[in-house]
């Protein structure tokens, strides 16, 4: 057996330490580079769009003239979209999660549903658009309405809500459940009065993050034929509408330089909405984060 040669070790030590230091800073630089990308992106958009932000921009409809172009129809349209997506996706998502966590037996059907949900999460959003176009717009003849778009978006974010809710329900300790059963509560009573209240912070946080993804999605809306230039607000869920990302897409793809500014202003509004939703999620997480 060879013994360690002290001299070789000493000789190689400097080189090893240098490599160690070099790579440490390389890895750090790579991390900073990713963060830098975010900073540049935000900086560019704020400096480009801030000048165009005004009350008028929020209150005006879209226009051929960049200086008059406003985002009212898109902002209200996105709110309408959320009014369909939020209840639909949360009911479907939380319901599925309760079934999978509380009721489902360990059999092939359950495994299939689980596998199916994780596969669904990997389907590109544009393909969900094709589904919406065929099923909701054409087969159920909902047209390019708020309802058709809302259902499409709900299915798109469903896997995210299911997975988040499953985790939240799973993290409710078993003793609470046992205590509830011990007091004579039925299964459904236990779920509604014990498990869901305990899981609600996790469920809400996950749902809000999923909804903020739905607000920023563009591709499915384009595929189901949501128009851009709209001079009225929808009066109901069967009316057509436009949404923030659609409006931004339209402005960005126009050749005139002035519309780039308008698009940047639109992005600021979109990012503000997202920031607002994310802060609510963070507040909920911090406020209700009880440790059992």
């Amino acid at each position, binding site marked *: 057996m060879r013994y360690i040669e002290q001299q070789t070790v000493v000789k190689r030590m400097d080189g090893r330490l240098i490599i160690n230091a070099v790579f440490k800073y*390389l890895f750090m630089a790579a991390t900073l580079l990713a963060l830098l990308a975010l900073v540049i992106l935000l900086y560019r958009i704020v400096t480009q769009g801030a000048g165009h932000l005004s009350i008028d921009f929020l209150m005006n409809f879209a226009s051929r003239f960049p200086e008059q172009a406003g985002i009212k129809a898109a902002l209200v349209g996105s709110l309408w979209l959320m009014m369909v997506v939020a209840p639909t996706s949360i009911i479907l998502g939380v319901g599925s999660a309760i*079934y999978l966590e509380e009721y489902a037996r360990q059999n092939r059907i359950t495994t299939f549903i689980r596998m199916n949900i994780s596969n669904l999460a990997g389907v590109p959003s544009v393909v969900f658009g094709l589904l919406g176009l065929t099923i909701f717009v054409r087969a159920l003849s909902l047209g390019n309405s708020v309802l058709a778009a809302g259902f499409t978006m709900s299915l798109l974010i469903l896997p995210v809500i299911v997975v988040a809710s499953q985790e939240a329900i799973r993290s409710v300790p078993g003793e609470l459940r046992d205590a509830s059963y011990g007091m004579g509560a039925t299964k459904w009573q236990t779920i509604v009065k014990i498990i869901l209240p305990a899981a609600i912070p996790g469920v809400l946080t996950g749902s809000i993050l999923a909804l903020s993804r739905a607000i920023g999605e563009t*591709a499915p809306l384009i595929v189901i034929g949501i128009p851009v230039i709209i001079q009225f607000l929808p009066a109901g869920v069967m009316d057509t509408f436009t949404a923030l990302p659609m409006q931004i897409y339209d402005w960005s793809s126009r050749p005139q330089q002035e519309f780039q500014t308008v698009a940047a202003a639109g992005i600021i509004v979109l990012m503000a909405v997202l920031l607002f939703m994310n802060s609510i999620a963070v507040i909920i997480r911090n406020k209700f984060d009880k440790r059992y």
Partner: protein
Amino acid sequence: MRPSVQDMIAQSKGKKNKQMIEKIIPIILFLIASVSVLTSIGIVMTLIVETVTFFTRVPFLDFIFGTTWLPFSNKEAQFGILPLIVGTLKVTLIAVIVAVPIGISAAIYLSEYASENIRRVVKPILEVLAGVPTIVYGFFALTFVTPVLQAMFPEIKIFNAISPGIVVGIMIIPMIASLSEDAMSSVPKSIREGALAMGSTKFEVAWKITVPAALSGIIASVVLAVSRAIGETMIVSLAAGSTPRFDGDFTGSIQTMTAYIVQVSKGDAGYGTTIYYSIYAVGFTLFVFTMAMNILAGYVSKRFREEY
């Protein structure tokens, strides 16, 4: 006097509708849970039915081996999907070149070097980066990255594969970084400490211990990110152009599968035309590509996982 618990239980046992609820609820919840299955079936059926209609008009072999994609031609429309696949692969290749080194380096830094405080700051920022809508990235590619590239390399056109490729890369960095970091963090501390005690430097631990042990997770994260890049739509629609090309040029306008679907949807192609059905055929191809990637990722992370 308040009724005793025994009475309450006896009383509630007698209530019919309560028992009904207990029986009906699981059925309702099962129906809700099957919506996701119905969605998958809906997606697959939609794509298959409309694609079959497409193949009654365009021969299958012309579609998968054709090197010309000219759907809007008045004389003779040609539907060979290879140019769209090549366009998609160009963008994906650049995205991988950008995202894999940066993403994995960031993951190594976060799991091996960074202090708890730094992690607490950096990880939420990466989450923000992951939450930026793709339309915003598209705008960024078109109005910032492309002009910067053009200033450096004048031969790059307004619409090209490089700029959207870089930005798609930026978009998937958080995914690679956080999934790889998860994989590396789950490597037990004792192995690391063993190596450190034997006199390894931190880099040697990361490179020879942690990365090999977490390799299946790292590869799976890259494969998932590639799947995301293939399916990415808005960045390429805004910044890559709409010229389907079957060549190796990255500097000029190209078209990806996703961008074609958007182009047709925007243009309001009449229902029932061959062009209308072609978006389903392209969508089906896209679906097959991303599904293959997702299944591969699942297989890699299961099959090659190192258990400790």
